[in-house]
């Protein structure tokens, strides 16, 4: 049985799921100043009538790292950069304890110039004087050759236990993002460690020993041990949980589709290509920092069931602000929900009040009440669809680098829209009218995020780089740096990448039939160097495919009295 906890901004949901079947669902409000306590109360409520021994794994979507970053409640990080020649990026947001080392490594991973080891002594002294708590060490092109980062670390290892090395976070090339990601990782390391320790202690008191997995922004999970090394991967997992939840509630189909999560204030949009979600091209952005953290691509727009509606020069304006709940639910200002309630598409607590609010708004615009309500609904749906069109236009223009992709690449053309959220059912008709696409919505959308958290599978992605001229092979994410012989080829590289990603998956508790490893990119370039014959430059990416541990079967109604 999987126990999952999904912590959002306002609510914390928890579920128990057995082999894909929902056992129990509990929803609590979040006490923002006591995140741990909030989790704990929710858990006790969930487990009070359950057999704890049945719990085989715990899935946690937590906002501790996200909140720490957004609120600036982070550790004091000492940052050491080896930038070498290139672009002069602005390092302004890496804190006051920032030092630059001389030397550089080039794009092949060849050290062009060594750093000056004498500089390290002074840096260490400065860190200690300034009470630096954790370190981030980042060198340009370190995924190609991590030696510089490792040498620097070894100098500080006696004084610091929390040291993040740039190359350990991603094999992708992007120095400024590596720098920001390593900084954030070091900045939240202590916060996350404290949270994990509290969690483990509390679970132990309850005699729960099941392994813990943390949700990531890519819709997968990571085991607690790995998360302690790379806590930055736990940021912004909320939209990913909702994506996974939506995909759990709908039967899997290998088609292009749009997923919508319509909330009170915002609507989140996800795009599926052949049933697979689109990912952020490089990584997600948090606190104005672009990172290398892999994430499901989602766009949030300021349009929800509670968006504030007013007239502006005779035009209806919806959102992006929320000024409290809908009139139909005891609020003060008109919202799309009120229009849906008035039109009989949705139920409300105070339908008469909603009708009065719509009527007075309509007379303000010299409109018929019903026409006005219909207009609000149409406008709402059309705004969402316009945004979807913008997104599709953008992603269909994403850069490609081969003739095959340019001439024969698939454009994403959605066949259906799958919607969850309060107004999902009520809006289905209008969305269909506006798009001409099939629109579907599940029952019990409230459980989506928690179910998504429960069924999310551990995921990992690796980048293999091999160069037969230099006889090196690297997989930075797994800290694999090996030598190869000159006959090494693409097929061997793919094989090694698959086995490596499968080992990583197995270490995170995936069984053989759940691994579902795949090569996502693979290329081999002839290198011609003088008369020395052909060498090869090989790049392969492999991943554990994000997905569900089990198909979801919502056969049981949720409710406290339905436990076994």
């Amino acid at each position, binding site marked *: 049985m999987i126990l999952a906890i999904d912590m959002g901004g306002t609510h914390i949901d928890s579920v128990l799921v057995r082999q894909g079947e929902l056992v129990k669902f509990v929803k609590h409000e979040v006490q923002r100043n006591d995140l741990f306590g909030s989790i704990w109360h929710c858990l006790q409520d969930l487990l009070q009538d359950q057999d704890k021994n049945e719990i085989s794994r715990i899935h946690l979507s937590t906002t501790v790292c996200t909140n720490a970053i957004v609120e600036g409640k982070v550790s004091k990080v000492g940052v050491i950069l080896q930038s*070498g*020649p*290139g672009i002069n990026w602005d390092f302004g947001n890496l804190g006051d304890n920032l030092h630059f080392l001389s030397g550089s490594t080039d794009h092949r991973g060849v050290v062009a110039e060594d750093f000056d080891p004498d500089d390290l002594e002074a840096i260490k002294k400065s860190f200690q004087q300034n009470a630096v708590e954790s370190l981030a060490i980042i060198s340009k092109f370190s995924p190609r050759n991590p030696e510089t980062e490792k040498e620097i670390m070894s100098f500080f290892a006696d004084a610091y236990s929390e040291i993040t090395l740039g190359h350990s976070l991603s094999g992708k090339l992007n120095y400024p993002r590596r720098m920001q990601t390593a900084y954030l990782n070091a900045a939240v390391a202590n916060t996350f460690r404290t949270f994990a320790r509290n969690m483990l202690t509390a679970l132990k008191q309850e005699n729960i020993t099941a392994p813990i997995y943390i949700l990531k922004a890519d819709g997968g999970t990571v085991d607690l041990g790995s998360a302690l090394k790379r806590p930055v991967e736990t940021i912004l997992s909320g939209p990913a949980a909702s994506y996974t939840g939506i995909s759990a509630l709908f039967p899997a189909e290998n088609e292009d589709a749009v997923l919508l999560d319509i909330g009170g204030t915002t609507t989140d949009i996800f795009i599926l290509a052949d049933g697979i979600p689109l990912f952020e091209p490089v990584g997600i952005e948090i606190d104005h920092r672009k990172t290398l953290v892999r994430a499901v691509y989602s766009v949030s727009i300021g349009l929800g069931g509670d968006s504030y509606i007013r007239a502006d020069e005779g035009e209806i304006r919806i959102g992006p602000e929320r000024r409290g709940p809908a009139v139909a639910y005891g609020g003060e200002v008109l919202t799309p929900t009120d229009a849906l309630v008035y039109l009989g598409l949705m139920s409300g607590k105070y339908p008469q009040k909603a009708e009065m609010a719509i009527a007075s708004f309509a007379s303000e615009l010299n409109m018929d009440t019903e026409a006005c309500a219909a207009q609000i609904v149409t406008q709402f749906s059309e705004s969402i669809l316009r945004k979807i069109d913008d997104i599709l236009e953008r992603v269909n223009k994403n*850069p*490609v680098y081969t*003739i095959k992709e*340019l001439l024969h690449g698939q454009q994403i053309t959605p066949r259906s829209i799958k919607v969850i959220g309060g107004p999902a059912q009520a809006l289905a008709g209008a969305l269909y009218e506006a798009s001409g696409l099939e629109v579907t919505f599940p029952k019990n959308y409230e459980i989506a995020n928690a179910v998504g958290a429960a069924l999310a599978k551990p995921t990992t992605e690796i980048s293999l780089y091999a160069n037969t001229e230099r006889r090196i092979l690297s997989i930075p994410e797994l800290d694999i740096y090996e030598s190869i012989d000159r006959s090494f080829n693409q097929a061997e590289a793919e094989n090694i990448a698959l086995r490596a990603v499968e080992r990583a998956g197995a270490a995170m508790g995936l069984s053989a039939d759940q691994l579902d490893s795949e090569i996502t990119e693979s290329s081999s*370039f002839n*290198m011609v160097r003088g008369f020395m014959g052909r060498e090869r430059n090989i790049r392969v990416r492999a991943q554990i495919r994000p997905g569900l541990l089990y198909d979801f079967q919502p056969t049981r109604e949720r409710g406290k009295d339905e436990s076994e």
Partner: protein
Amino acid sequence: MKANNSLGLIFFPAFDWAISPAHPEREERLLYTQDQLFEEGVEDIEGINFFNPSVARPADVQRVHFAYPDVDSIVSESHYIAAGGVMRALDAVMSKETDKAFAMVRPPGHHAQRVTYGDRGFCIINIEAVGLEYIRQKHPDLRVAIIDTDCHHGDGTQDIYWNDPDTLFISFHQDGRTLYPGTGDMSELGGPGAYGYNLNIPLPPNTGDEGFLHVLDNVVLPVLDDYKPDLIINSAGQDNHYTDPLTNMNFSAQGYALLNEKLNPDVAVLEGGYSIEGALPYVNLGIVLAMAGLDYSAVREPDYHEAKWRQSQRVTRQVEEISRQVLKNWENRKKLAEEEFRGLRKVTLPRQVYYDTAGIMETQRQEFTICGDCPGVNVIHSVNDRGASLIGVQIPRQACPSCQREGYRLFEEAAKAGVKRRFLQDRSNDQYFAS
């Protein structure tokens, strides 16, 4: 970080195409440039946007070339895309989608001449010219300057714009007596309709940063000031670099960046450059930053030592002398044209053109009619050592009504000449005929 000039990058490395597996024009060519651009985080600079190339159509190629036997037989997808990259760059700039654009595409094009039988100097079609003539269909009155900074003479672009006064062509290159393709002398000044609008600046081997910048400051910029083009295109070959395996020049990434900052082109197009690990990653990065108006002072090759690549005093003196002469030719172009063409009604230009990659020898005769009202109709008679023969008639964009009629008459007349193919390029009506 935000670009001061928004810049569209049409970065298309064609990772699945090579002339042949060990050819310099192979899949690997832009691989390390991509590594460098990605690692530097160029894609995250606000104002720098990556665009996919358009794909040129045969009609776009016909506007520029007499392709034998026909366009589709000799032009592959990769060429349509490289030319399409330039089209996209020009579209983006002319529609003000972006301030500037850099087409980092392959294969190059500046050795492809009006007649094309196949591959010359890795070029089959002239990608700048295909792009430029495409955009001129939307903006017919554009006055354009093409500045070719590739180490080889841009003989294809010279041939295409030889008689077009609305396209100023300036090429600086390693002296043709020491490097392929051998042409590019100062005395090659253009046809009767555009004499002096073709400027060659042949430079001695081992010219360094100082020499290139001297040419820029003392010839190119003054000429541009005078010509006042609506659009500046840089044919940005990168084989003047000190590490290039095919050439003998000493230009650096800093030099290329400074050149682009001063030249301030609207569009740059990658041409040659085959030091794919030692030069391209740094030169391309330098050009990107310079075009975007960003600080490039820290861009440098890991092995660069200024003193090592500084040019000799002898080279400096030669460069200064060449620069003086070229500028003088520009200033005296009207007078020189009068002397050259006084009393003539037609100018004939016999030439031989060697296709190094394809191994074809072409013999041709170009005839330029002199007209007082327009640049005049011109005709190419061409045969090659593989038994091909063609006559190509060109009616220029700016043609007067009588030259338009004359063009059609010459095309009819060519039917009796017994050549295998005849072509009519009616640029004034954007119509193209072949038979």
